[in-house]
């Protein structure tokens, strides 16, 4: 189906260079670092009454880790939920999974983000500009954006006709990463096309421990490497844009592929025999996970006087598989004839389209009208079962107005209505039924357990909105206040699942009558700049009714490997906290930056915190910069998280020391950028409260030496304009 789309877009890509005229003269120049201009940043930041952070390519390279989310963690309030050293998923102010949205080129990324062992399928090398909106963003993006949005976008096309490119090479010691990326772009008159290919291979990662203790069993870690955590990723992307007069269009195709091994101890009860050294730290053995994410999107935009109309359309296929040696708890389940070790297989197809019209009435008023539709279909396979097949349809309409009486003040407000439809198919487990009957359970109990998912057909209607202002009393101060109402539709797992989650060893039970998660969110942000001091603080307070969480019921499950039943339940919950950032420039070449954050969560029905609450943390960073050289030293302090939900473990705090340096070395006709960093210098053993492996008591990766070399080139073309 989507092959057609690729074909069309590829034709564009291939015919394009053909139309390029011959270059009659070559002038090679050094590519200047493309940075976000202050005006762009200020413009975006001033337009939103919510706290907004914008980072560019140079930030991405300065803090490069090879993993997009781990790089973004340097922004206060943002966290990365890691599954070993390969997969990571985003979290904003304690909200993760389906509660935040990631968009690329205007299209919301749709994968299996509800899952704890899912990672974001984004090429870290290809990220050019990131806009992080903290706080309720349902008004702009509908369901799932209640905690915030991470928007990925492209840098503007160069103004001159040119051929340019970049080669980046990455090496990491902690898991033997070898990676690289090549990018090449061409700008000719109205057209701009760029292609990127990236690949990364990594071995089992090192941890500063010889044993791990899990369920009172001491398990060996041979050579201090965590067995079978190796993996690789391969990404390719094409982006082309066309601008002529009032018309603008872009076409993007991207494919991200990742294959990462799972530590065997995290699948089933750890057994020392499974953790024997196999002599190869680079092999990916069972169990492992494989993900392919294909994304095709286009934007069509037309601007005329007061009106600007923009249409975004996209198709995505997310295909995720988990492979694990065939095993069953019921004895009677036969080994599948094809792909006997394929445990889980999800294929999620998503179509998005949206229409947005901006009406700039006068210099004081701007109105935006928007409409969007999304259709999803999830199909499943494999010998095990986790998530049912479902179809989901959502449609939303929004109105947003901005009133700016003068340069110092702007008031913005908007309303949105969303309709959602969820159609979940029932799944009957015949092997489980037979197993239970053999064990002489009562008919009623068998009836309750044999459905791995119940048929659910629900309709939802939700209103979201926001009202806020930005006030800039003078050049050095800025105040933002926003009140928002946002929502999230319950997911298929929350509505219909019924069975042991293979990664959590819990019997998780959905609730077909769950209502949408809704919340009132209050956000404020204040920033000031006085001479060489810049300070920003952004407190927030949110109250949710029907916040969906897994409630321990105290009822024992009869399923093998399950303890009590956990049931998805909607409760009142409170999230509050703040971020602060202080930056001090002194002695000309020095910069001292301190950032801190705190999140407080509270489940008002259980009188406990919510699970996965990020611990308070702080970064102290001192940078010395002189011409082409930059050195930095950072102390990262993470507090003990003792505010845990039921059946969650306390995670102790840690202080980590990091060192880094960047050099810009003129070589031949270009500038080679070299980034060194030494993370966790003291090889401290610590745990990350948000890590997937935390519950299996696996410490975080140890000392890591990272080297990134970036070689850009640029070649201006003299092409006559037609």
């Amino acid at each position: 189906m989507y092959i057609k789309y690729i074909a069309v877009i590829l034709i564009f890509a291939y015919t394009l260079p053909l139309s390029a005229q011959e270059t009659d003269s070559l002038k090679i120049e050094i590519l200047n670092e493309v940075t976000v201009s202050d005006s762009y940043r200020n413009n975006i930041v001033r337009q939103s009454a919510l706290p907004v952070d914008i980072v560019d390519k140079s930030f991405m390279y300065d803090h490069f880790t090879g993993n997009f989310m781990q790089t973004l963690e340097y922004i206060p309030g943002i966290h990365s939920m890691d599954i070993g050293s390969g997969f990571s998923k985003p979290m904003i102010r304690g909200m993760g999974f389906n509660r935040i949205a990631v968009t690329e080129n205007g299209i919301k990324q749709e994968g299996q983000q509800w899952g704890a062992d899912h990672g974001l399928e984004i090429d870290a090398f290809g990220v050019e500009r990131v806009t992080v909106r903290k706080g309720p963003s349902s008004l702009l993006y509908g369901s799932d954006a209640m905690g915030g949005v991470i928007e990925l976008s492209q840098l503007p096309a160069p103004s001159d006709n040119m051929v340019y490119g970049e080669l980046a090479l990455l090496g990491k010691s902690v898991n033997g990463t070898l990676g690289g990326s090549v990018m090449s772009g061409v700008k000719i008159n109205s057209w701009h096309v760029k292609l990127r290919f990236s690949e990364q291979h990594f071995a089992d990662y090192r941890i500063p421990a010889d044993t791990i203790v899990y369920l009172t069993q001491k398990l060996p870690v041979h050579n201090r490497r965590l067995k079978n955590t190796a993996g690789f990723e391969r990404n390719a992307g094409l982006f082309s844009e066309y601008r002529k007069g009032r018309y603008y269009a872009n076409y993007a195709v991207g494919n991200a592929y990742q294959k990462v091994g799972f530590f065997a101890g995290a699948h089933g009860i750890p057994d020392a025999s499974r953790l024997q050294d196999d002599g190869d730290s680079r092999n990916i053995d069972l169990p492992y996970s494989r993900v392919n994410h294909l994304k095709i999107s286009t934007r069509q935009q037309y601007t005329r006087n007061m009106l600007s109309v923009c249409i975004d359309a996209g198709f995505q296929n997310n295909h995720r598989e988990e492979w694990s040696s065939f095993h069953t708890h019921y004895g009677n389940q036969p080994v599948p004839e094809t792909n006997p070790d394929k445990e889980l297989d999800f294929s999620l197809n998503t179509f998005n389209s949206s229409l947005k019209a901006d009406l700039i009435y006068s210099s004081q008023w701007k109105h935006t009208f928007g409409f969007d539709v999304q259709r999803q279909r999830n199909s499943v396979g494999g010998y095990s079962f986790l998530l049912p097949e479902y179809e989901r349809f959502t449609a939303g309409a929004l109105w947003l107005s901005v009133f700016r009486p003068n340069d110092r003040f702007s008031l913005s407000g908007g309303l949105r209505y969303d309709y959602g439809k969820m159609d979940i198919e029932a799944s009957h487990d015949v092997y489980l039924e037979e197993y239970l009957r053999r064990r002489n359970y009562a008919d009623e109990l068998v009836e309750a357990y044999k459905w791995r998912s119940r048929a659910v057909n629900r309709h939802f209607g939700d209103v979201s909105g926001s009202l806020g202002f930005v006030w800039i009393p003078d050049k050095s101060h800025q105040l933002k206040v926003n009140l928002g109402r946002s929502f999230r539709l319950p997911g298929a797992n929350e509505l219909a699942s019924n069975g042991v989650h293979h990664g959590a060893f819990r019997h998780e039970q959905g609730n077909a009558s769950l209502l949408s998660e809704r919340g009132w969110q209050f956000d404020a942000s204040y920033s000031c700049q006085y001479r060489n001091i810049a300070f920003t603080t952004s407190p927030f307070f949110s109250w949710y009714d029907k916040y969906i969480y897994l409630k321990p019921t105290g009822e024992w499950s009869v399923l093998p490997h399950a303890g009590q039943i956990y049931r998805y339940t909607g409760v009142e919950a409170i999230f509050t906290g703040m971020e602060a950032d202080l930056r001090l420039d002194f002695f000309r070449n020095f910069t001292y930056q301190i950032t801190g954050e705190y999140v407080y969560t509270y489940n008002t029905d259980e009188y406990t915190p919510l699970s996965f609450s990020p611990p308070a943390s702080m970064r102290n960073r001192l940078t010395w910069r002189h011409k082409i050289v930059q050195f930095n030293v950072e102390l990262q302090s993470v507090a003990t998280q003792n505010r845990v939900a039921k059946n969650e473990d306390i995670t102790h705090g840690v202080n980590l020391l990091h060192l880094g340096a960047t050099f810009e070395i003129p070589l031949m006709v270009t500038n080679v950028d070299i980034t060194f960093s030494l993370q966790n210098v003291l090889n401290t053993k610590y745990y990350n409260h948000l890590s997937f492996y935390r519950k299996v008591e696996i410490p975080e990766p140890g000392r890591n030496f990272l080297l990134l070399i970036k070689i850009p080139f640029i070649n201006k073309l003299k092409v006559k304009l037609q």
Partner: protein
Amino acid sequence: MKTIIKFSIICLTAISFLTFTGCDKNEESDTTKPVIKLIEPEEDDVLKIGADVHFEAEFEDDKMLASYKVNIHPNFDGHSHAVTKGETETVDFEFEKSWTISGKNTSIHHHEIVIPENATPGHYHLMVYCTDAAGNESYIAVDIELSHEGEEHEHEEDEHND
């Protein structure tokens, strides 16, 4: 203008301060897991087929215990729960039962688990789960082996009759 700025800063600080302290006053409920001390059977114990199992454990919680559960299931190939091929006259032994307990500290000792004569010999997992009244749960797993040659446990006279 200056006063307005100052006023807003004070307001912001006050809001953030109030939200933090406001919530902390609520009493937080129990998130401490119960503790399971399994005394018998021990790791790698060989249990005799056709006999009962000497089960002895201590459960402890800071507030109130609720229930415990014992589960025994096959672990034949050392790691996963693969299907055994071919016909066998024996039946894979599976056991699952829960008991209600209460108080902060309790010692359990019983012989309610009986391994039938036709149980398949081999490696098994024995798992003990425990919950407290708030729903905090802990569990432990031990490897055991069922064998016809298994030693019948020597049994000193019960000091604790539960």
